């Protein structure tokens, strides 16, 4: 096989289609039941789409991408997760199959997407608190609306889009909170200046805003959720005004009855596979934190491994589509399927569009740059690591003994559970960074200058990522992993 694509979202699908069109033999896998990734997620099994328009534009875009990839000859496999990647050989597990399959390819494209930025605050573990991504998945795959009196709290373009989408499903959105500042004339001027070539994005934003106004959903700027309250589930949401760093301004708290709190502070790239492959990373909180380094053709520092989409820094679906195509063109040229000149020529319009998107993203940064305050909301009794039930107090106690990320993990077990630190590691590293101070072996603080990437040392990478990357990167049953043909030399060694 020529190209093995991990991830069936916009980046992976567009890459698979593009590469197959140039004659590469392509296999794409995705761990979910349906393709489309999070954004173009297709309805789950058992759903029949009678009117595509009513399901939404994202659905239709997904269908088109899947069709294009299939028509070009790419093989697409769902329910298949990648457990390990070494060089350009991947160990894959297809649901329902009793064994691991090894896939060897000349090139690998990792397009793993992103997951919700976890933000611990008092009450974040209460039933009724959902993440924006989780709620979207629920809506898109199962057509289920979360809750009936919903507060949305978060930041970024999604803070506009999501409440508008939910309203369509009949959810009563009682309040939308945006942690970033109210747009001023100077912001809007910058955005409009960058808007050239981004008309669709601007139009979307305006239409979402208009829908909120029409539905009389109050949208309040520079406010963030402080805690969720309730006995067995969310009964009320407390929110407060925040400063430029999203730090709570005392005395501005307000309480509002609600049964659902949807939290959307943006997304963080899924980095497990890319870290396992040994890729180099930089750091940019506004792109989601750890960002894999790629060249102009989306090639990482690991031989034969490329990366595209939100997994390489969260920029959204339009950018992911372009990056996927660039990665495919790069691979096609590298493997001799097309000439370098042809690749350059085909890439030119893609690069132009990507540059326009990037201008737009940067123009929005003054409004949406992530503030350090969201990592300072937890109270001593807040459970930071949900898998191992580790509270903030426990973490702070152990940080009296050590500021080493591995040691903190071993003393508290934070990050050792089922999610392997995906939910708690950012908070743990923020706590460590604050205690280490700026001078010593500090991890980068939240980017002060919006949009600037920071090169990472090994130790900083370890502090931010927490776990050492090791297979399997997805849970895998012992019976599936078990290989009786591995020779056992029979020497017992015990503790």
């Amino acid at each position: 096989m020529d190209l093995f694509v991990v991830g069936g979202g916009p980046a992976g699908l567009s890459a698979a289609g593009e590469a197959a069109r140039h004659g590469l033999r392509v296999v794409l896998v995705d761990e979910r039941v349906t393709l489309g990734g999070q954004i173009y997620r297709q309805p789950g099994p058992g759903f029949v789409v009678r009117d595509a328009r009513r399901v939404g534009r994202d659905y239709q875009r997904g269908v088109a991408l899947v069709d294009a990839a299939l028509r070009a000859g790419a093989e697409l496999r769902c329910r298949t997760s990648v457990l390990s990647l070494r060089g350009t050989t991947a160990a894959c597990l297809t649901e329902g199959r009793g064994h691991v399959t090894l896939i060897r390819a000349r090139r690998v494209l990792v397009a793993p997407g992103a997951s919700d930025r976890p933000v611990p605050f008092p009450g974040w573990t209460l039933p009724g608190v959902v993440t924006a991504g989780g709620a979207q998945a629920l809506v898109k795959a199962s057509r289920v609306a979360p809750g009936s009196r919903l507060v949305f709290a978060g930041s970024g373009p999604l803070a506009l889009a999501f409440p508008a989408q939910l309203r369509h499903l009949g959810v009563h959105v009682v309040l939308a909170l945006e942690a970033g500042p109210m747009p001023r004339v100077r912001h809007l001027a910058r955005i409009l200046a960058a808007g050239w070539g981004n008309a669709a994005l601007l139009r979307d934003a305006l239409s979402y805003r208009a829908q909120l106004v029409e539905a009389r959903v109050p949208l309040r700027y520079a406010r963030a959720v402080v805690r969720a309250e309730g006995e067995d589930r969310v009964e009320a949401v407390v929110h407060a005004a925040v400063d430029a760093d999203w730090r709570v301004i005392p005395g501005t708290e307000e309480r509002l009855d609600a049964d659902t709190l949807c939290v959307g502070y943006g997304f963080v790239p899924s980095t497990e596979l890319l870290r396992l492959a040994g890729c180099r990373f930089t750091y940019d909180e506004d792109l989601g934190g750890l960002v894999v380094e790629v060249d102009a053709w989306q090639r990482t520092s690991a031989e034969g491994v490329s990366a595209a989409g939100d997994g390489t820094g969260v920029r959204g679906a339009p950018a992911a589509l372009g990056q996927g195509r660039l990665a495919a063109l790069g691979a096609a040229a590298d493997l001799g399927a097309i000439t370098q000149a042809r690749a350059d020529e085909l890439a030119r319009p893609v690069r132009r569009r990507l540059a326009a998107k990037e201008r737009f993203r940067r123009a929005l940064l003054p409004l949406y740059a992530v503030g350090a305050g969201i990592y300072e909301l937890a109270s001593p009794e807040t459970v930071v690591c949900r898998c191992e039930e580790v509270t903030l107090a426990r973490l702070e106690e152990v940080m009296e003994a050590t500021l080493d990320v591995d040691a903190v993990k071993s003393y508290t077990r934070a990050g050792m559970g089922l999610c392997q630190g995906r939910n708690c590691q950012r908070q743990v590293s923020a706590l460590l960074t604050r205690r280490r101070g700026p001078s010593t072996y500090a991890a980068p603080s939240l980017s002060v200058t919006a949009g600037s990437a920071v090169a990472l040392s090994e130790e900083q990478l370890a502090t931010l990522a927490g776990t050492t990357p090791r297979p399997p990167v997805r849970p895998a049953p012992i019976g599936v992993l078990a290989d009786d043909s591995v020779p056992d030399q029979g020497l017992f060694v015990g503790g």
Partner: protein
Amino acid sequence: MLLPRRQDLAGDVPTDSDVVIVGGGLAGCALAYFLAVAGVEVVLLERAELNREASGTNAGSFHFQIAIHQLTGAGWDADRARLLDDVRFLSRAASMWMDLERELRADLGVHVTGGLMVAETPEQLDILVQKQRVEREGGLETEVLTGAGLRTFAPYLAEDLVGATYCPSEGYANPLVTAPAFAARAIEAGAAVRTHVPVWEVERLEDHSGGSRFVVRHARGALRARRVVNAAGAWAPDLARANGLKLPLHAEGLHVNVTEPRARLLHPVVQHIGRRLTLKQSANGTFIIGGGWPARAEPWPARYSIRWTSMTGNAAVARRVVPALADVRVIHTWAGVWAGSEDLLPVVGESARLPGYFTFVVPTGFTLGPLMASLLAEQMTLSATTRVPLEYSPDRAPVFAGGARRAVPG
């Protein structure tokens, strides 16, 4: 949880001490504790964090049954006297573990669950039967289980396993907190424990001025010492080499599989007499599966990386022994370094060629570390009732792979 405080670990490094211990693993921390409690002036220097290598990355089981590596292959009669010594020693290690939480006034996660050692073949069962006789004679309580007795006692084992021995004093503790607890109590008793202080070399002084025989040169200066203990685990040979000592030790990487938590299935820890398997279900329900599968060595400070075949081979043996594990998901693997001696015996004692220079490395260190530390401390304070066995001497000749003490199981 009992942990040493950061400001204590970051304090000034003394310039003079009776004993300097190099290495903050279980061996070094436990020895610092026993020496400090006995009133000995002691400084422990650790290059990084406490307990980060073998002491904190082993699976935390303590095994007291005679293991296959203790048999020389020369026959039971030939081995009997030495095995009896081993058993008595291991029984003492068992008593030590039973008492350790009280001794340290700390929760070390000690669970005395009992332990099974299983056999797949009649030949292996024969070894179990023979070894159990020696264990009984040496005072370690064990019993042989076969047939319906085994099924009733351990219904989760594969039905075609021919037998097992059960030792009620086996179990596990939390390897992540044991050495730090020793360090915290050592500091309380007056020891100076310092982290992030790499030792560059141990220089021998010829004139013994002021009673010091060594100068320990480290990242933050120099430290004069009457006695030095090399407790640097897998890196002990590197440190000793500069002093002309060739320790019979080498570094290996060991693999461990960790699963998602499940409802209680196993109570005892399980090992295999003839294959690489140690298995337990920890207090929080996860299964910890290891047993000596190799990992890829990486230069320090990089962590050892995983061999795919160790994960899958280890999984196969685990499923063979406990078939119900087939649908339990592995969520994580880890690899730790292991300081191995070819004969798997501890490397403990003073070097005749370099008086005052002690080595303290224990390949089965979680089981034996605390006991060995107390014995070595007694020896160093001349209050010993039992000496550290001479066969543990760091001066002994290395035994090479395939050497006399390794038996091939049936």
